[in-house]
C-alpha cells in the first residue's frame, strides 16, 4: 500500500528551524489511508489554512501535530524537537501548542475563569493571582471580561469558542491549531470568533487553521493548502489557489463551495 518511492521522502531532513516540520507522515485507520505522505514546513509566525472536502484528512493532519492522532509512520518536529522521541515528554510539548476544537470542549464543571486558570496553575505552577490576572487579560482580549464567573453552559456558542481560544492562549503557546473552529456555530456567531482569530494573527501567532471560511483564508493566510483523499494536492498563496486553481480537484471543490 505504501509507495516505496514516496517513502523515501521521509529520509529528507526535517527543517529544524521551522515551528512545525512534518516528513513522510502517513496515517492508516485499519484499511483506510487517512494521510498520504504529508511533508510540510510551517515557519514561526506563519499562518497556514488547510482546506479540502470532508474526509480529506485535513483534521487528521492537524491532530497529528500535537499527537492527538498518532502518525503511523513519519517524523514530526515542533520547534526543532522530535515529538516521537521518548526523551521528549509529549505533555510538555503540548503545552506549547494550543488547540481549538469544533465543539469548543470547555470544561463544563468549571467557571470560565477556572477554565482559563486550571492548566497554567497545574502545569506551569503559576500562583492563583497571577493566573487570574492573565486570564482576565485574555478574557478582555476576546471581549468576555464580564463572563468570568459564568459557567460554559450559560454562554452562546460563539462566546464558548472565544473562551476556548482564551483557554488555549492561557498556556502561552507559540503555535495555535484550529480544527474547524466555526463549523458548529450559528452563522451570526461566526464573525465574532473570526475577529478574535484575525486579531491573534495580526499579533504574529503561528497558526494552522482547518476551516471552510474562505474569506478568512483570503484575509489572513500566508499559505493555503488544499488536501484531498489524505494528500496535499496543491498549496500556495491564497490568491493563487482561489483565483487560479491548477488541479482539477481543487477547481471542482471551489466550484462546489462558492
Amino acid at each position: 500500500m505504501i509507495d516505496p518511492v514516496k517513502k523515501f521522502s521521509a529520509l529528507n531532513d526535517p527543517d529544524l528551524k521551522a515551528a512545525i516540520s512534518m516528513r513522510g507522515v502517513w496515517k492508516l485507520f485499519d484499511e483506510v489511508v487517512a494521510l498520504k505522505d504529508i511533508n510540510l514546513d510551517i515557519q514561526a509566525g506563519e499562518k497556514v489554512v488547510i482546506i479540502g472536502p470532508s474526509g480529506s484528512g485535513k483534521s487528521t493532519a492537524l491532530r497529528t501535530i500535537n499527537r492527538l492522532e498518532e502518525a503511523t509512520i513519519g517524523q514530526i518536529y515542533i520547534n526543532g524537537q522530535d515529538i516521537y522521541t521518548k526523551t521528549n515528554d509529549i505533555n510538555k510539548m503540548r503545552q506549547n501548542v494550543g488547540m481549538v476544537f469544533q465543539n469548543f470542549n470547555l470544561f463544563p464543571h468549571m467557571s470560565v475563569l477556572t477554565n482559563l486558570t486550571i492548566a497554567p496553575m497545574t502545569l506551569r505552577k503559576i500562583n492563583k493571582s497571577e493566573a487570574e490576572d492573565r486570564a482576565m487579560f485574555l478574557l478582555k482580549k476576546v471581549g468576555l471580561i464580564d463572563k468570568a464567573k459564568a459557567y460554559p453552559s450559560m454562554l452562546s456558542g460563539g462566546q464558548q469558542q472565544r473562551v476556548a481560544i482564551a483557554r488555549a492562549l492561557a498556556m502561552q503557546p507559540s503555535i495555535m491549531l484550529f480544527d474547524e473552529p466555526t463549523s458548529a456555530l450559528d452563522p451570526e456567531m461566526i464573525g465574532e470568533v473570526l475577529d478574535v482569530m484575525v486579531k491573534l494573527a495580526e499579533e504574529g501567532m503561528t497558526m494552522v487553521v482547518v476551516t471552510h471560511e474562505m474569506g478568512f483564508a483570503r484575509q489572513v493566510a500566508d499559505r493555503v493548502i488544499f488536501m484531498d483523499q489524505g494528500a496535499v494536492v496543491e498549496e500556495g498563496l491564497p490568491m493563487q489557489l482561489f483565483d487560479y486553481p491548477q488541479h482539477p480537484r481543487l477547481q471542482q471543490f471551489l466550484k462546489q463551495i462558492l
Partner: protein
Amino acid sequence: MIDESKQTANEEKVLIFTEGPAPLNIKEKNRISAWFFSFAFSILTLAGLCIYRPDPYWTIMLFVPDGLLVTFQITLISVSIAVPIGLLTGLGRLSKNPIINSIASVYVEIIRGIPLLMQLFYIYFALGSLLQMSPMVSAVIALSFCYGAYMGEVFRAGILSVSHGQTEAARSLGFNQQQTTFIIVLPQAMRTIIPPIGNECIALLKDTSLVSVIAISDVLRRGREYAASTYEYFETFTVIALVYLIITLLLSKCMSMIEKRLSYYDRSR
C-alpha cells in the same frame, strides 16, 4: 455536524439501574408524589399500629433498634470500602494496560456470576474457618467485594459517558492521563455516577439482611429472635418491612438532594 450530534447524544446518556427504589429525578413530578405516598403510607401505618396496638407492635419497635444499629454499621463500613474498590475497578476496566484490565475484568465477571448469599457463605464458612474471621468481618468483606464489582461497572459507564472531546481538550493543554482523569473527567462523571451509586448503597443496605444467616444480630435477625419466642411472625415482619421501607425511602430522598446539588453547572441560564 456529525460530531456535534454525537456529543449531544453523549451528554444525554443516562445510566439504567434496576435494583432498589429509584432515586428521585427532579424532572419527574409524579415520582415525587409516588415517593410521598409511600413514605406517608409507611409512617402512618407504623405509627397507627404502635398507637392502637402497642402490644405487640410497640414492644417489637423497642426490640429492633439494636439490630438497626448493626445494619447501619455494616452498611456504612461496606459502602466506604466498596466505593474505592468500585472506583479502582472502573478505572482498571478502562485501563489500556492489559494486566490491570484483565485483573479488573476477571474480578467483575467472577463476583457477578456468584450469588451474594453464596459469597457470604463461602467467605464466612470456607475462608472464615481457615483465617479465623469473625462473622462481622466476613460480612463486611463479602458485601464490599460484591458491591465493589457492581459499582465498578457504574464507574466505568459514568467515565465513558463523559464526551471524548473533554479528554482531548485536556490532553491538548498538556495534562497527562492521570491529571485528565482526576481533574477533568471524574468530576464530570460524578454527576452520572452518583445516582446509581446511591442506588447501589440502598441495595447494599437491603442486602445486609442476608447477614442474619451467619449469626449477626441485624434488624432481620432481631425480628426473627423476637418472633421465635412469641410466635408473632405476622406482626414482627410487618414492622421490620416497614422499617426497611422507611429507611430506604429516606435514603433515596437524600440521594436526590445530592444529585440536585451536583447539577449546579447545568443550564443555569
